[in-house]
Protein backbone atom coordinates (compact mmCIF):
# COMPACT_ATOMS: atom_id res chain seq x y z
CA UNK A 1 0.00 0.00 0.00
CA UNK A 2 2.72 2.41 1.02
CA UNK A 3 4.85 1.60 -2.01
CA UNK A 4 1.90 2.27 -4.28
CA UNK A 5 1.24 5.53 -2.42
CA UNK A 6 4.85 6.63 -2.65
CA UNK A 7 5.03 5.70 -6.34
CA UNK A 8 1.86 7.54 -7.13
CA UNK A 9 2.96 10.62 -5.26
CA UNK A 10 6.37 10.71 -6.91
CA UNK A 11 4.80 10.11 -10.27
CA UNK A 12 2.23 12.84 -9.72
CA UNK A 13 4.90 15.28 -8.61
CA UNK A 14 6.95 14.56 -11.72
CA UNK A 15 3.94 15.20 -13.92
CA UNK A 16 3.25 18.48 -12.12
CA UNK A 17 6.89 19.50 -12.48
CA UNK A 18 6.82 18.64 -16.18
CA UNK A 19 3.90 20.99 -16.75
CA UNK A 20 6.03 23.66 -15.11
CA UNK A 21 8.96 22.95 -17.40
CA UNK A 22 6.62 23.04 -20.39
CA UNK A 23 6.29 26.78 -19.74
CA UNK A 24 9.94 27.22 -20.54
CA UNK A 25 9.52 25.50 -23.85
CA UNK A 26 6.34 27.18 -25.00
CA UNK A 27 5.98 30.75 -26.17
CA UNK A 28 2.36 31.70 -26.54
CA UNK A 29 0.23 32.81 -23.65
CA UNK A 30 -2.38 30.25 -24.60
CA UNK A 31 0.15 27.46 -24.13
CA UNK A 32 1.09 28.96 -20.77
CA UNK A 33 -2.53 29.05 -19.69
CA UNK A 34 -3.12 25.47 -20.79
CA UNK A 35 -0.02 24.23 -19.03
CA UNK A 36 -1.12 25.99 -15.86
CA UNK A 37 -4.62 24.60 -16.06
CA UNK A 38 -3.40 21.04 -16.55
CA UNK A 39 -0.86 21.44 -13.83
CA UNK A 40 -3.53 22.62 -11.42
CA UNK A 41 -5.72 19.70 -12.41
CA UNK A 42 -2.86 17.32 -11.71
CA UNK A 43 -2.33 19.06 -8.39
CA UNK A 44 -5.99 18.57 -7.53
CA UNK A 45 -5.66 14.87 -8.24
CA UNK A 46 -2.57 14.83 -6.07
CA UNK A 47 -4.53 16.33 -3.17
CA UNK A 48 -7.22 13.69 -3.65
CA UNK A 49 -4.65 10.89 -3.71
CA UNK A 50 -2.96 12.12 -0.57
CA UNK A 51 -6.31 12.71 1.09
CA UNK A 52 -7.32 9.12 0.31
CA UNK A 53 -4.11 7.36 1.29
CA UNK A 54 -3.31 9.70 4.15
CA UNK A 55 -6.85 9.40 5.53
CA UNK A 56 -7.40 13.11 5.69
CA UNK A 57 -10.85 14.25 4.56
CA UNK A 58 -9.86 17.92 4.96
CA UNK A 59 -7.77 17.57 1.85
CA UNK A 60 -10.90 16.80 -0.21
CA UNK A 61 -12.30 20.18 0.79
CA UNK A 62 -9.04 21.86 -0.14
CA UNK A 63 -9.01 19.98 -3.44
CA UNK A 64 -12.47 21.34 -4.28
CA UNK A 65 -11.32 24.92 -3.60
CA UNK A 66 -8.16 24.30 -5.55
CA UNK A 67 -10.11 23.01 -8.51
CA UNK A 68 -12.53 25.91 -8.53
CA UNK A 69 -9.82 28.53 -8.13
CA UNK A 70 -6.95 27.26 -10.19
CA UNK A 71 -8.59 25.07 -12.82
CA UNK A 72 -11.75 27.08 -13.45
CA UNK A 73 -11.41 30.70 -12.39
CA UNK A 74 -7.81 31.76 -12.94
CA UNK A 75 -7.33 30.15 -16.37
CA UNK A 76 -10.63 31.69 -17.42
CA UNK A 77 -9.36 35.14 -16.45
CA UNK A 78 -6.10 34.47 -18.27
CA UNK A 79 -8.01 33.46 -21.37
CA UNK A 80 -10.10 36.57 -21.20
CA UNK A 81 -6.99 38.72 -21.05
CA UNK A 82 -5.55 36.79 -23.93
CA UNK A 83 -8.63 37.58 -25.98
CA UNK A 84 -8.35 41.20 -24.96
CA UNK A 85 -4.70 41.66 -25.82
CA UNK A 86 -4.38 39.12 -28.59
CA UNK A 87 -2.25 36.02 -28.23
CA UNK A 88 0.88 37.41 -26.64
CA UNK A 89 4.02 35.55 -27.56
CA UNK A 90 7.09 35.38 -25.42
CA UNK A 91 9.24 35.73 -28.49
CA UNK A 92 12.43 36.98 -26.93
CA UNK A 93 12.78 36.14 -23.26
CA UNK A 94 15.84 37.37 -21.39
CA UNK A 95 17.21 33.82 -21.48
CA UNK A 96 16.61 31.88 -24.68
CA UNK A 97 14.62 28.71 -24.68
CA UNK A 98 17.37 26.12 -24.99
CA UNK A 99 19.40 27.74 -22.23
CA UNK A 100 16.25 28.04 -20.09
CA UNK A 101 15.60 24.34 -20.47
CA UNK A 102 19.14 23.40 -19.57
CA UNK A 103 19.07 25.78 -16.61
CA UNK A 104 15.79 24.34 -15.44
CA UNK A 105 17.48 20.94 -15.38
CA UNK A 106 20.19 22.42 -13.18
CA UNK A 107 17.57 24.10 -10.99
CA UNK A 108 15.94 20.75 -10.36
CA UNK A 109 19.33 19.30 -9.49
CA UNK A 110 19.79 22.20 -7.09
CA UNK A 111 16.40 21.44 -5.60
CA UNK A 112 17.54 17.89 -4.94
CA UNK A 113 20.62 19.17 -3.15
CA UNK A 114 18.66 21.72 -1.14
CA UNK A 115 15.93 19.34 -0.04
CA UNK A 116 18.30 16.52 0.86
CA UNK A 117 17.87 17.16 4.61
CA UNK A 118 14.08 17.10 4.28
CA UNK A 119 14.08 13.76 2.52
CA UNK A 120 16.46 12.32 5.11
CA UNK A 121 14.45 13.60 8.05
CA UNK A 122 11.03 12.59 6.83
CA UNK A 123 9.60 9.09 6.90
CA UNK A 124 6.45 9.89 4.98
CA UNK A 125 5.78 7.77 1.89
CA UNK A 126 5.48 11.01 -0.09
CA UNK A 127 8.96 12.29 0.65
CA UNK A 128 10.24 11.31 -2.80
CA UNK A 129 8.25 14.17 -4.32
CA UNK A 130 9.68 16.91 -2.10
CA UNK A 131 12.66 17.71 -4.35
CA UNK A 132 10.36 17.86 -7.34
CA UNK A 133 8.07 20.33 -5.57
CA UNK A 134 11.05 22.48 -4.65
CA UNK A 135 12.23 22.18 -8.25
CA UNK A 136 8.87 23.47 -9.40
CA UNK A 137 9.15 26.46 -7.06
CA UNK A 138 12.54 27.26 -8.57
CA UNK A 139 11.26 26.83 -12.12
CA UNK A 140 8.34 29.16 -11.40
CA UNK A 141 10.72 31.73 -9.97
CA UNK A 142 12.89 31.35 -13.05
CA UNK A 143 9.92 32.03 -15.33
CA UNK A 144 9.04 35.17 -13.37
CA UNK A 145 12.60 36.43 -13.62
CA UNK A 146 13.39 35.66 -17.24
CA UNK A 147 10.14 36.30 -19.12
CA UNK A 148 9.23 39.71 -20.40
CA UNK A 149 5.47 39.75 -20.72
CA UNK A 150 3.51 40.79 -17.68
CA UNK A 151 1.08 37.94 -18.27
CA UNK A 152 3.69 35.23 -18.55
CA UNK A 153 5.26 36.53 -15.36
CA UNK A 154 1.91 36.12 -13.67
CA UNK A 155 1.64 32.54 -14.86
CA UNK A 156 5.15 31.94 -13.56
CA UNK A 157 4.06 33.25 -10.20
CA UNK A 158 0.99 31.02 -10.18
CA UNK A 159 3.12 28.01 -11.06
CA UNK A 160 5.38 28.86 -8.17
CA UNK A 161 2.32 28.95 -5.90
CA UNK A 162 1.40 25.51 -7.17
CA UNK A 163 4.87 24.35 -6.25
CA UNK A 164 4.42 25.63 -2.73
CA UNK A 165 1.04 23.94 -2.40
CA UNK A 166 2.61 20.71 -3.62
CA UNK A 167 5.47 21.04 -1.16
CA UNK A 168 3.04 21.60 1.68
CA UNK A 169 0.80 18.69 0.84
CA UNK A 170 3.68 16.27 0.24
CA UNK A 171 5.62 17.25 3.31
CA UNK A 172 2.86 17.60 5.85
CA UNK A 173 -0.29 16.15 4.26
CA UNK A 174 -1.68 19.64 4.21
CA UNK A 175 -1.21 22.66 6.42
CA UNK A 176 -4.11 23.58 8.74
CA UNK A 177 -7.17 24.24 6.64
CA UNK A 178 -7.76 27.77 7.87
CA UNK A 179 -4.30 28.78 6.71
CA UNK A 180 -4.81 26.94 3.44
CA UNK A 181 -8.01 28.84 2.73
CA UNK A 182 -6.36 32.11 3.66
CA UNK A 183 -3.62 31.35 1.19
CA UNK A 184 -6.18 30.71 -1.54
CA UNK A 185 -7.81 34.03 -0.79
CA UNK A 186 -4.45 35.75 -1.01
CA UNK A 187 -3.61 34.07 -4.30
CA UNK A 188 -6.93 35.15 -5.73
CA UNK A 189 -6.59 38.72 -4.54
CA UNK A 190 -2.96 38.93 -5.64
CA UNK A 191 -3.95 37.63 -9.03
CA UNK A 192 -6.77 40.13 -9.35
CA UNK A 193 -4.47 43.02 -8.50
CA UNK A 194 -1.91 41.85 -11.00
CA UNK A 195 -4.65 41.49 -13.57
CA UNK A 196 -5.79 45.05 -12.96
CA UNK A 197 -2.22 46.17 -13.43
CA UNK A 198 -1.89 44.31 -16.68
CA UNK A 199 -4.80 46.36 -17.98
CA UNK A 200 -3.15 49.54 -16.71
CA UNK A 201 0.18 48.57 -18.22
CA UNK A 202 -1.47 47.82 -21.51
CA UNK A 203 -3.32 51.10 -21.67
CA UNK A 204 -0.35 53.18 -20.50
CA UNK A 205 2.50 51.52 -22.34
CA UNK A 206 0.45 50.14 -25.24
CA UNK A 207 2.16 46.80 -24.76
CA UNK A 208 2.58 44.35 -21.94
CA UNK A 209 6.32 43.99 -22.35
CA UNK A 210 7.83 44.77 -18.99
CA UNK A 211 11.21 45.70 -20.44
CA UNK A 212 9.56 48.90 -21.62
CA UNK A 213 9.43 49.86 -17.99
CA UNK A 214 12.72 51.59 -17.52
CA UNK A 215 11.72 55.05 -16.45
CA UNK A 216 12.67 54.72 -12.82
CA UNK A 217 16.39 54.79 -12.32
CA UNK A 218 18.08 56.82 -9.64
Amino acid sequence: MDTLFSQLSTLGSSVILLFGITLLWRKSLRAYTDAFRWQSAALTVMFLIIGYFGNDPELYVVAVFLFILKVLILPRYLERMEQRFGDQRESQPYVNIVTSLMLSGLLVLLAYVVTRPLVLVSDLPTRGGLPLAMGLIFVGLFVVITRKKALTQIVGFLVMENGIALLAVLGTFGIPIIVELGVFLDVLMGFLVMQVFVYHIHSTFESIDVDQMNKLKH
Partner: protein
Amino acid sequence: MTGYLLEFSQALLALLLAPMLAGFVRWVKARLQNRRGAPIWQPYFELAKLFGKDVVMSNNASWLFRVAPYIVFASALAVTFLIPLIAAPLPFDNIGDLLVVVYLLLLGTFFLALAGLDTGTAFGGMGSSREMTVAAIAEPTIALSIFSLALGAGSTNLSHIVVATLTNPGVALSPGHLLAFAAIFIVSLAETGRLPVDNPSTHLELTMIHEAMILEYSGRYLALIEWASWLKLTIFFALLANLFVPWGLATALTPAALAIAVVTLILKLAILGVVVAVVETRIAKLRLFRVPELLGMSFVLALLAVTSSFLLK
Protein backbone atom coordinates in the same frame (compact mmCIF):
# COMPACT_ATOMS: atom_id res chain seq x y z
CA MET B 1 24.73 -23.14 -30.12
CA THR B 2 21.05 -22.35 -29.73
CA GLY B 3 22.19 -18.99 -28.43
CA TYR B 4 23.98 -18.14 -31.66
CA LEU B 5 21.04 -19.42 -33.62
CA LEU B 6 18.86 -17.11 -31.56
CA GLU B 7 21.13 -14.14 -32.23
CA PHE B 8 21.09 -14.69 -35.96
CA SER B 9 17.39 -15.33 -36.15
CA GLN B 10 16.81 -12.14 -34.10
CA ALA B 11 18.91 -10.10 -36.53
CA LEU B 12 17.17 -11.72 -39.48
CA LEU B 13 13.80 -10.99 -37.94
CA ALA B 14 14.70 -7.35 -37.51
CA LEU B 15 15.94 -7.16 -41.09
CA LEU B 16 12.72 -8.63 -42.40
CA LEU B 17 10.39 -6.69 -40.14
CA ALA B 18 12.00 -3.32 -40.74
CA PRO B 19 10.54 -2.56 -44.21
CA MET B 20 7.16 -3.85 -43.11
CA LEU B 21 7.17 -1.50 -40.09
CA ALA B 22 7.96 1.45 -42.33
CA GLY B 23 5.20 0.39 -44.72
CA PHE B 24 2.80 -0.04 -41.82
CA VAL B 25 3.40 3.47 -40.50
CA ARG B 26 2.88 4.89 -43.98
CA TRP B 27 -0.31 2.88 -44.38
CA VAL B 28 -1.77 4.00 -41.04
CA LYS B 29 -0.91 7.57 -41.87
CA ALA B 30 -2.62 7.24 -45.20
CA ARG B 31 -5.76 5.83 -43.58
CA LEU B 32 -5.77 8.65 -41.01
CA GLN B 33 -5.60 11.13 -43.85
CA ASN B 34 -8.50 9.43 -45.67
CA ARG B 35 -6.29 7.98 -48.36
CA ARG B 36 -6.27 4.36 -49.33
CA GLY B 37 -2.48 4.14 -49.07
CA ALA B 38 0.04 1.71 -50.50
CA PRO B 39 0.00 -1.85 -49.09
CA ILE B 40 2.24 -2.36 -46.13
CA TRP B 41 4.66 -4.57 -48.08
CA GLN B 42 5.35 -1.77 -50.57
CA PRO B 43 8.83 -1.11 -49.04
CA TYR B 44 9.89 -4.64 -50.02
CA PHE B 45 9.06 -3.86 -53.66
CA GLU B 46 11.00 -0.62 -53.36
CA LEU B 47 14.02 -2.49 -52.07
CA ALA B 48 13.80 -5.06 -54.86
CA LYS B 49 13.47 -2.31 -57.45
CA LEU B 50 16.42 -0.37 -56.10
CA PHE B 51 18.65 -3.43 -55.89
CA GLY B 52 17.85 -4.13 -59.50
CA LYS B 53 18.90 -0.72 -60.75
CA ASP B 54 22.27 0.62 -61.83
CA VAL B 55 24.17 3.02 -59.64
CA VAL B 56 24.64 6.52 -60.99
CA MET B 57 27.40 8.42 -59.29
CA SER B 58 28.80 11.90 -59.33
CA ASN B 59 32.27 12.31 -60.88
CA ASN B 60 33.39 14.09 -57.74
CA ALA B 61 32.42 11.23 -55.44
CA SER B 62 35.32 9.62 -53.57
CA TRP B 63 35.67 6.14 -52.09
CA LEU B 64 33.95 7.46 -48.98
CA PHE B 65 30.75 7.86 -50.94
CA ARG B 66 30.87 4.21 -51.97
CA VAL B 67 31.82 2.82 -48.56
CA ALA B 68 29.36 4.83 -46.50
CA PRO B 69 26.20 2.83 -47.35
CA TYR B 70 27.86 -0.41 -46.28
CA ILE B 71 29.04 1.10 -43.00
CA VAL B 72 25.65 2.60 -42.31
CA PHE B 73 23.91 -0.67 -43.01
CA ALA B 74 26.45 -2.78 -41.14
CA SER B 75 26.37 -0.61 -38.04
CA ALA B 76 22.58 -0.76 -37.88
CA LEU B 77 22.66 -4.49 -38.43
CA ALA B 78 25.29 -4.95 -35.71
CA VAL B 79 23.03 -3.20 -33.25
CA THR B 80 20.29 -5.76 -33.85
CA PHE B 81 22.61 -8.40 -32.43
CA LEU B 82 23.14 -6.44 -29.25
CA ILE B 83 19.68 -5.38 -28.17
CA PRO B 84 17.08 -7.69 -26.64
CA LEU B 85 14.51 -8.06 -29.39
CA ILE B 86 12.79 -11.30 -28.51
CA ALA B 87 14.84 -12.78 -25.67
CA ALA B 88 17.00 -11.76 -22.73
CA PRO B 89 19.71 -12.39 -21.67
CA LEU B 90 21.55 -12.87 -24.96
CA PRO B 91 24.82 -14.69 -25.61
CA PHE B 92 26.32 -11.55 -27.17
CA ASP B 93 25.59 -9.49 -24.09
CA ASN B 94 29.22 -9.36 -23.14
CA ILE B 95 30.27 -7.97 -26.50
CA GLY B 96 28.56 -4.68 -26.12
CA ASP B 97 26.43 -2.76 -23.71
CA LEU B 98 24.35 0.34 -24.24
CA LEU B 99 27.37 2.53 -24.90
CA VAL B 100 28.35 0.36 -27.82
CA VAL B 101 24.80 0.51 -29.12
CA VAL B 102 24.64 4.29 -28.90
CA TYR B 103 27.98 4.74 -30.61
CA LEU B 104 27.27 2.19 -33.33
CA LEU B 105 24.19 4.22 -34.15
CA LEU B 106 26.23 7.41 -34.11
CA LEU B 107 28.82 5.80 -36.37
CA GLY B 108 26.20 5.27 -39.04
CA THR B 109 24.97 8.85 -38.72
CA PHE B 110 28.52 10.14 -38.89
CA PHE B 111 29.36 8.32 -42.11
CA LEU B 112 26.11 9.30 -43.70
CA ALA B 113 26.89 12.92 -42.92
CA LEU B 114 30.37 12.50 -44.42
CA ALA B 115 28.88 10.99 -47.55
CA GLY B 116 26.45 13.89 -47.78
CA LEU B 117 29.37 16.31 -47.77
CA ASP B 118 31.48 14.18 -50.07
CA THR B 119 29.90 15.05 -53.40
CA GLY B 120 30.05 18.73 -52.63
CA THR B 121 26.46 19.53 -53.58
CA ALA B 122 24.59 22.24 -51.80
CA PHE B 123 21.76 20.13 -50.47
CA GLY B 124 24.01 17.33 -49.27
CA GLY B 125 26.10 19.71 -47.21
CA MET B 126 23.02 21.39 -45.84
CA GLY B 127 21.50 18.06 -44.84
CA SER B 128 24.72 16.95 -43.18
CA SER B 129 25.09 20.06 -41.12
CA ARG B 130 21.48 19.85 -39.98
CA GLU B 131 21.79 16.16 -39.18
CA MET B 132 24.85 16.86 -37.05
CA THR B 133 23.02 19.64 -35.20
CA VAL B 134 20.28 17.19 -34.33
CA ALA B 135 22.64 14.33 -33.51
CA ALA B 136 24.80 16.47 -31.25
CA ILE B 137 21.92 16.91 -28.82
CA ALA B 138 20.11 13.67 -29.50
CA GLU B 139 22.94 11.25 -28.78
CA PRO B 140 23.75 12.43 -25.25
CA THR B 141 20.05 12.38 -24.52
CA ILE B 142 19.79 8.72 -25.46
CA ALA B 143 22.86 7.88 -23.44
CA LEU B 144 21.53 9.79 -20.43
CA SER B 145 18.11 8.24 -20.51
CA ILE B 146 19.45 4.73 -20.82
CA PHE B 147 21.83 5.58 -17.98
CA SER B 148 18.88 6.39 -15.81
CA LEU B 149 17.57 2.89 -16.46
CA ALA B 150 21.04 1.49 -15.91
CA LEU B 151 21.22 3.20 -12.54
CA GLY B 152 18.06 1.43 -11.50
CA ALA B 153 19.28 -1.94 -12.68
CA GLY B 154 22.88 -1.51 -11.56
CA SER B 155 24.32 -2.39 -14.97
CA THR B 156 24.74 -0.76 -18.36
CA ASN B 157 23.99 -4.06 -20.00
CA LEU B 158 20.68 -3.84 -21.87
CA SER B 159 19.67 -7.40 -21.05
CA HIS B 160 20.34 -6.84 -17.37
CA ILE B 161 18.16 -3.76 -17.43
CA VAL B 162 15.36 -5.72 -19.06
CA VAL B 163 15.63 -8.58 -16.59
CA ALA B 164 15.74 -6.16 -13.67
CA THR B 165 12.51 -4.57 -14.81
CA LEU B 166 10.94 -8.01 -15.31
CA THR B 167 11.77 -9.11 -11.77
CA ASN B 168 10.65 -5.85 -10.22
CA PRO B 169 7.66 -4.64 -12.23
CA GLY B 170 6.94 -1.63 -10.00
CA VAL B 171 9.99 0.12 -11.42
CA ALA B 172 8.23 0.52 -14.75
CA LEU B 173 5.99 3.21 -13.25
CA SER B 174 8.74 5.12 -11.47
CA PRO B 175 9.23 8.71 -12.60
CA GLY B 176 12.75 7.92 -13.75
CA HIS B 177 11.44 5.34 -16.19
CA LEU B 178 8.62 7.49 -17.47
CA LEU B 179 10.81 10.54 -17.97
CA ALA B 180 13.41 8.44 -19.76
CA PHE B 181 10.67 6.97 -21.93
CA ALA B 182 9.44 10.42 -22.89
CA ALA B 183 13.00 11.54 -23.62
CA ILE B 184 13.80 8.55 -25.80
CA PHE B 185 10.50 8.83 -27.62
CA ILE B 186 11.25 12.41 -28.64
CA VAL B 187 14.79 11.52 -29.61
CA SER B 188 13.62 8.51 -31.62
CA LEU B 189 11.48 10.80 -33.70
CA ALA B 190 14.48 13.03 -34.31
CA GLU B 191 16.97 10.26 -34.96
CA THR B 192 14.77 8.35 -37.36
CA GLY B 193 13.87 11.49 -39.25
CA ARG B 194 10.17 11.61 -38.41
CA LEU B 195 7.91 14.59 -37.84
CA PRO B 196 8.12 17.09 -36.14
CA VAL B 197 11.86 17.16 -36.76
CA ASP B 198 12.07 15.90 -40.31
CA ASN B 199 9.45 14.82 -42.78
CA PRO B 200 10.27 11.42 -44.32
CA SER B 201 7.90 11.93 -47.25
CA THR B 202 8.92 15.45 -48.18
CA HIS B 203 9.92 16.44 -51.69
CA LEU B 204 10.94 19.94 -50.79
CA GLU B 205 14.73 20.02 -50.61
CA LEU B 206 14.87 23.14 -48.49
CA THR B 207 13.17 21.48 -45.53
CA MET B 208 14.97 18.16 -45.73
CA ILE B 209 17.41 16.79 -43.23
CA HIS B 210 17.87 13.08 -43.72
CA GLU B 211 16.60 13.04 -47.30
CA ALA B 212 18.94 15.87 -48.27
CA MET B 213 22.01 13.88 -47.29
CA ILE B 214 21.09 10.95 -49.50
CA LEU B 215 19.86 12.91 -52.51
CA GLU B 216 22.88 11.81 -54.52
CA TYR B 217 22.42 8.10 -53.87
CA SER B 218 20.79 5.67 -56.23
CA GLY B 219 20.50 1.97 -56.95
CA ARG B 220 21.72 -0.54 -54.42
CA TYR B 221 23.41 2.12 -52.33
CA LEU B 222 20.13 3.90 -51.85
CA ALA B 223 18.52 0.55 -51.06
CA LEU B 224 21.06 -0.12 -48.31
CA ILE B 225 20.65 3.31 -46.82
CA GLU B 226 16.86 3.13 -46.88
CA TRP B 227 16.92 -0.31 -45.38
CA ALA B 228 19.33 0.87 -42.69
CA SER B 229 17.13 3.78 -41.78
CA TRP B 230 14.08 1.50 -41.50
CA LEU B 231 16.21 -0.78 -39.39
CA LYS B 232 17.05 2.14 -37.18
CA LEU B 233 13.35 2.87 -36.74
CA THR B 234 12.81 -0.74 -35.75
CA ILE B 235 15.72 -0.60 -33.32
CA PHE B 236 14.43 2.50 -31.60
CA PHE B 237 10.92 1.13 -31.37
CA ALA B 238 12.25 -2.14 -30.02
CA LEU B 239 14.33 -0.30 -27.43
CA LEU B 240 11.34 1.76 -26.38
CA ALA B 241 9.13 -1.30 -26.22
CA ASN B 242 11.47 -3.73 -24.54
CA LEU B 243 13.34 -1.52 -22.13
CA PHE B 244 10.25 0.07 -20.67
CA VAL B 245 7.61 -2.62 -21.18
CA PRO B 246 9.63 -5.81 -21.27
CA TRP B 247 6.73 -8.20 -20.71
CA GLY B 248 6.42 -10.92 -23.36
CA LEU B 249 10.16 -11.17 -23.88
CA ALA B 250 11.38 -14.74 -23.71
CA THR B 251 13.55 -15.44 -20.70
CA ALA B 252 13.84 -19.14 -21.46
CA LEU B 253 14.62 -20.56 -24.87
CA THR B 254 11.52 -22.69 -25.34
CA PRO B 255 9.70 -22.61 -28.67
CA ALA B 256 6.47 -21.49 -27.01
CA ALA B 257 8.15 -18.59 -25.21
CA LEU B 258 9.94 -17.53 -28.37
CA ALA B 259 6.75 -17.65 -30.38
CA ILE B 260 5.02 -15.48 -27.80
CA ALA B 261 8.01 -13.13 -27.83
CA VAL B 262 7.86 -12.70 -31.60
CA VAL B 263 4.13 -12.05 -31.53
CA THR B 264 4.38 -9.53 -28.69
CA LEU B 265 7.29 -7.81 -30.41
CA ILE B 266 5.25 -7.37 -33.57
CA LEU B 267 2.34 -6.17 -31.51
CA LYS B 268 4.41 -3.61 -29.62
CA LEU B 269 5.99 -2.36 -32.83
CA ALA B 270 2.54 -2.05 -34.37
CA ILE B 271 1.26 -0.05 -31.41
CA LEU B 272 4.23 2.30 -31.50
CA GLY B 273 3.78 2.54 -35.27
CA VAL B 274 0.18 3.67 -34.79
CA VAL B 275 1.27 6.19 -32.14
CA VAL B 276 3.90 7.66 -34.45
CA ALA B 277 1.45 7.79 -37.33
CA VAL B 278 -1.09 9.62 -35.17
CA VAL B 279 1.57 12.04 -33.92
CA GLU B 280 2.72 12.71 -37.48
CA THR B 281 -0.80 13.33 -38.64
CA ARG B 282 -1.67 15.59 -35.72
CA ILE B 283 1.32 17.92 -35.72
CA ALA B 284 3.19 20.02 -38.22
CA LYS B 285 6.91 20.11 -38.78
CA LEU B 286 8.80 22.41 -36.44
CA ARG B 287 10.81 25.25 -37.82
CA LEU B 288 14.45 24.27 -37.87
CA PHE B 289 15.30 26.79 -35.14
CA ARG B 290 12.77 25.17 -32.84
CA VAL B 291 14.32 21.71 -33.25
CA PRO B 292 17.18 22.29 -30.78
CA GLU B 293 14.56 23.53 -28.32
CA LEU B 294 12.57 20.32 -28.65
CA LEU B 295 15.69 18.26 -28.25
CA GLY B 296 16.77 20.46 -25.36
CA MET B 297 13.46 19.62 -23.73
CA SER B 298 14.11 15.91 -24.18
CA PHE B 299 17.61 16.38 -22.81
CA VAL B 300 16.16 17.98 -19.69
CA LEU B 301 13.72 15.09 -19.38
CA ALA B 302 16.62 12.67 -19.58
CA LEU B 303 18.59 14.66 -17.04
CA LEU B 304 15.62 14.64 -14.68
CA ALA B 305 15.26 10.90 -15.27
CA VAL B 306 18.86 10.34 -14.23
CA THR B 307 18.47 12.62 -11.25
CA SER B 308 15.37 10.98 -9.96
CA SER B 309 16.63 7.43 -10.42
CA PHE B 310 19.97 8.35 -8.88
CA LEU B 311 18.67 10.23 -5.90
CA LEU B 312 15.61 8.15 -5.19
CA LYS B 313 17.51 4.90 -5.09
